Structure formats: structure tokens, C-alpha cells
């Protein structure tokens, strides 16, 4: 049962991912991407990582998605026809992707296995409570830094996209 759900989710993930990349209309791409992220959130849920799953939906579909759509709207790109790349560079892109896939898979296959066989032990290591404790205890400083990073990014984004005054 779980295996079937995994395969369905995996298919949705990959399929919407490919559609994201190939869709002609950028708005369609954005919508497919949201679906893809929802499926990844589903994967997280299956792994029993509820917190991650929720955060993933909030961040990606709630924040990043909206940003992307707003940008698209600002640029009014939806009906602009995007010319295709040259054939040579498209072939080169395909070859590079295959090469990357082979290389990464080969790395994983060649890697030394640390844990020979997986055996679930019934300990609570990933509940929201535990994550909260770890985040605000062990990873306190990086957590604060992340907040600084975010506010910096916000200021930066405002600064960069601000319309320059005409001199």
C-alpha cells in the first residue's frame, strides 16, 4: 500500500517537474511547480516529517509561488512567445543532463554504505516538539543567523527592484 502511494507520488513529482521545465507559458510552469512541491510535501509526510511538510507548503506555495506569480504579472510575460534555443545547444543541454545523471548515480552506487540494513527503532526523533527543541537549543545561533539572512534579503530585494529616480 505504502509502496503504491510512493510510486504514485514519485510519478506526480517527476511528471510535474518535467512539465514545469517544458511548459511554454511561465504561469503554467509555476502552477506545475506548485503541484510538484505539494507532492514533495507528501513525501515528507510519508517520512513522518510533519513539520517539514507543513513548512514546505507554507514556504514554497505560500511565499515563493506568490512571488513568482507576482513577478510574472509585473513583467507581463505570460503571452510573450519565448523563442527556442538553437538545436546545437539543445542537444548539448540534453547530453549534459544525461552526463550529470550518470555521474550522480555512479557516485551513489559507488558510495560506501555506512548502515548495512535499516531497522526502525521506535524512538521519537522527528516530532515537531523535538525539532523545536533542537532548533532553539543546539542550532540556536544558526537559527538567528537565518533570520538575519532573511531580513537582509528582504532589504536587498527592495533596494534592487526599487525604481531608480530619473536624474
Amino acid at each position, binding site marked *: 500500500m505504502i509502496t503504491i502511494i510512493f510510486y504514485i507520488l514519485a510519478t506526480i513529482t517527476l511528471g510535474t517537474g518535467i512539465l514545469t521545465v517544458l511548459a511554454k507559458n511561465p504561469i503554467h510552469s509555476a502552477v506545475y511547480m506548485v503541484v510538484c512541491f505539494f507532492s514533495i510535501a507528501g513525501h515528507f509526510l510519508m517520512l513522518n516529517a510533519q513539520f517539514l511538510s507543513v513548512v514546505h507548503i507554507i514556504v514554497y506555495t505560500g511565499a515563493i509561488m506568490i512571488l513568482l506569480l507576482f513577478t510574472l504579472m509585473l513583467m507581463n510575460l505570460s503571452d510573450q512567445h519565448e523563442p527556442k534555443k538553437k538545436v546545437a545547444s539543445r542537444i548539448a*543541454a540534453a547530453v*549534459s543532463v544525461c552526463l550529470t545523471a550518470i*555521474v550522480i548515480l555512479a557516485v551513489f552506487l559507488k558510495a560506501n554504505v555506512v548502515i548495512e540494513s535499516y531497522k526502525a527503532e521506535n524512538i521519537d526523533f522527528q516530532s515537531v516538539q523535538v525539532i523545536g527543541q533542537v532548533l532553539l537549543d543546539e542550532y540556536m545561533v544558526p537559527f538567528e543567523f537565518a533570520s538575519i539572512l532573511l531580513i537582509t534579503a528582504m532589504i536587498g530585494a527592495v533596494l534592487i527592484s526599487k525604481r531608480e529616480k530619473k536624474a
Partner: protein
Amino acid sequence: METGLVLLLLIFPLVGFLINLSVGKKIGRSLPGIIATAAVTGSFAISLFYFIQILSTGQAIEVHLFQWVAFGEFSVNLAFVLDQLSLLWLLVVTGIGTLIHIYSIGYMHDDENVDRFFSYLNLFIFFMIVLVTANNLLVMFIGWEGVGLCSYLLIGFWYKNQQFNDAAKKAFIMNRIGDLGFLTGVFTLAYLFKTVDFATLKLALSTTTTPETSALLGVAAFCLFIGAMGKSAQIPLYTWLPDAMAGPTPVSALIHAATMVTAGIFMITRLNFLFDLTPDIQYFIAIIGAVTALFAASIGIVQTDIKKVLAYSTVSQLGLMFLALGLGAYQIAVFHVITHAFFKACLFLGSGSVIHAMGGEQDMRKMGGLKGVMSITYITFLVSTLSISGIPPFAGFFSKDEIMLVAFQNSPILWVVAMLASLLTAFYMFRVLYLTFFKEFRGTSEQKKHLHESPSSMTMPLIVLGVLATVGGLISLPFGYSWLNNYLSPIFSGSDVVEAHGFSTEQMVFMGVSTLIALIGMSLAYYKYMTKSTVPEEDEKITGFAKVLYNKYYIDEIYNTIFIKPIYAMSNFFNSIVESIITGVVFGFALIAKGLSAPAKALQNGSVGFYLSFFVVAFCLLIICLFLV
């Protein structure tokens, strides 16, 4: 107190220099001259104070500032010494310097760069003080180079005239040849005795007598003499001095007659203990001196530029001083330096006054009859001419006579040469006098209207110098009544000059002969230029030996052919062939690098997409290298 006052002596002209250099342009036309004159006067007052002090105490004053250089067992201090010799020179430098500063206020009044002129003059005085008060050879070298620099700056003061710039460069380069000799001499002495300090050297020299050392001592003395040759314009390095007349006349009077050119004599006098040990070099110095005296005097008799005549006369007189030095009669050389400073400065300032009145004209063929208009200039010029010609009782007579006496005692041939030189001196000096001040005025009528006596700031120094040129001989009277010899005796350790006390017939005869010779020269000039009213011919009409003389024995041309043209040829060779080869090689490498980089340059096409593809491929290769190989 002592240190402070001595430092003040040095600092006054330096401060004057800095003030005129920095704010000279803003403080008006007359203030720079006043500041500069005040600075030199301050130095003169301090020198006078110490001079009076040393007259009563006889003690030299040493001022040690700090250790300048130290390595191994060799060290040099920045130290100054005020002894009898340097104080005497200080008085001459700052005293005549003050007079010439005052004179310059009038002479340079209309020049637009009067502030620059006075700042250079002050800088010169500063370096000259450093030179004469130095307590070791290296500090002396600072002053030595400094006065050379100021000489260069002042000869080329009117830098808009290319000829003047060339003259300045010539002076500088000639001096550099001498400086090389000077430095080599200093290094040899430093190598031998591990010191360049005068007092220590003197001590070391009195004890060392190995053959190797004495051979090297000869080398050192010779090299130092080359330095003196360059600075004091002796054969073969004299040609810069006549050209140096391109500078303003006060500069010629101060630097190229009274002070800087005597630096070589000062240096040799300072190192008398060294030269006493090398009789061969001394003899060489004497010969060079005598030959220079005659040679320059012979050129002087046909020159038509009033300043050129005086320049050759300076070279000739310096030759006489070197003759005295070479014969070991240092105090006589010093005596002649002092009297020469008086009358030659006076002559130059007088000629400056004439040039000023003539509106810049220097050619004697266009002068004449100035006696009536410029009486003060005429009288002082006459006095100085009598003095330089050796007519008693003027100052030049005493110093010149002593040189003749010493020359005769050592070598009659040298005496004959020196006598001939002084005959010619008397001739050409009176020639200048007659051509300039007597007969009819030969210039244009416009110049004639302009003729006037110079302002009092110019005539006052002339009068003072004229008086000094008259009575200057009193400091060293013959027959054993010489104050100067006693005064300088602490400087010369083994003074072996025989001093005849009391009247001797020989000396009387000598004086008679000297005076007679001077009178002959004078009458010859009178006959030629007064009785026959000859005026030197135009440049093209001069023929025969006179032409050779007029063209200064073609020495400049000979130097041009021997040294300058080969050097130019060599530079051309290096410029055209060697440099193009080197350039070719360098450019070749550049071309190779450019060619090799052309494919790599194509990769940098600026397209972000292209870069991304390479990024991915490189990422794959990196992973392969890291984990899969």
C-alpha cells in the same frame, strides 16, 4: 648654546630658502630679497662672532649632531667643525654672499622670478656652509653636491633660453665627472683607514707608512684632485665655467668666481696632511695649475664678451691657486682665494652694473666711454683691475707675489709660466677696462639714452668690495708680518714653507719684477687700445692664431669630437639596433601570448547560458575526479 648657535648658522639660509620657495610668489617683489639678505646676514653675524671668539681662544668648535651611517667598524657622524680654516671661508662666503644678495636686490628687481632666484641663492649659501664646516668627507660631499645643484639651477635660471639650459647641463655633467673622482677618493680613504673624519684621518696618516698604503694614498689624492679639477675648473674640466656665465651676473660673481669654484682649493687645503704625503700628486697639481693659468689667460686676451673674459680670468687665477697648493704653500693659496674673492666679485658685479646699464648687452665692442656716466662702477672696476693685475699696493699684488716667490723657489719653469700668465692677465684686464670705460660710446643711440649709474643697492656692495680689494692684502704682508700664516698655523701640521723674516733683497727684486711685468701688460694694452684705438674685429674677420684663441683653442669642439660624438653614436646604435631587438623580443612574446589566448578568448563570449553549460560540465568532471577516479 654652542650647538644651537652653530645650527642657527646653518638654518638661517635654509629657512630663507624655504620661505622664498613656499610663499615667495605671494609676498611681493621686494620682500624675497630682503628675507634672503637677512638670512645670509644672520649667518655672517654668527660667523663673525665665532671668528672673534677663535681669535682669542684658538680653540676649534665641534658640533656633533648624530650618527649618520654605521656598519661594521665604519661609521660616519653628521658633525660640523668650526676651526680657523672653515671660519675664514665662512666669513668669505657669508660676507661676500651678503654683499651680493644686496646687489641682487637691485640687479634682479625687474625679473619675474625674483623669489626663485633668492631661494636658490640662499640654498647655495646653505650648502656652501655645510661644505666648509663639514667635519668629515661625506658631510663635505653633501655640500659639494648641493652647491653643484645650486650652480646648475642658477646657470639655467633663465630657463626659457635653450643655450642657457645647455650651459647648465654642461656645468652639471662636468662636475659629475669630478664628483666621481671625489667619491672614489673618499672610498679609497674609507677603505684604507675605516674613517672619513678629518681629525681621525690626520691621526691615522701620521702613523701609517706601509708601501701598499702609500700607493693607495696616491690614488686617493689623485682622485680627490680630479674632484677639485671639476669643481674649480682646471684643465681638462674647465670648459663649463665660461659657459656658466649664462647665469645672472650676481650668480657668476658669487658662485663662479668667489665661493663655489674655490671649493676644490678648500678641500685640498683641508686635506693638506694627505697631499703632503704624496709629492708626485702635488707636483702634478702644480703643473696643472700653472698650465691652466697660462692657457686660460691666453684665451682671455681675445674674448669680446665682458663676462667671458672675467670667466677665463677666474680659471686662470684658480690655476695660480692650484700652483700654490701643488707647491705646498697652502696658506698662500688661501690668501689668494680671499683676495681673489674680493677683486673678482667686484669685477663681476662691476660688469653686471655695466650690463645692467647697457640693457643686457655683453659685447665690449659695443661699449666704451662709460667712465663719465658710471663713475662709481668705473672707480671700483679700476681698483679691482689694478688689484688683479698685481700692481702694488692693492690686495692682488701681495697674494700673487707670494705665489710667484714660491714658484721660483721650487721650479723656475713654473715661475716663467706663471709670470707669462700674469703678464697676459694684466693685458686682458686693462683691455677690458679701456674698451669698456674709455673712448667713445660704440653702442646704438637708444642704448646711449638708457645709460645710467646703477642704484645704490648695487653700488654699495661695489664700494665695499673695492675697498676690500684695495686693503685685503693687509692680512698677509710679506717679510714675515703675515697675520694669516699665524692664524692658519693650527691647520697645517708640518708647515715647511720657509718664511724669510726681515727684508731680503731677493724678495724685493721679485716684487720689482712682478710689478714690472704687470706694468708691461698694462702698457701694452694702453698702446693697443688707447693710443691706436683698436677695437676688436667682427667675428668673421679674426684670422690666424687669434682665431684659434678666439675659439678657445677649439677645446669644446675637440671634446665634442672625442667624447660626445662617440657617445651619441653609441646611443644611436643602442637606440636603433639593440633597443629594436629587445623590443622585438618583448613584443614577440606578447604576440605569442596573444595568439595562444585567441581560442581561450572565444570561450569568454559573455553569454550566461553558455557559461552555465560549462558550469554543469565542469561540475560533472569535478565529481568524477573527486569520487569516481
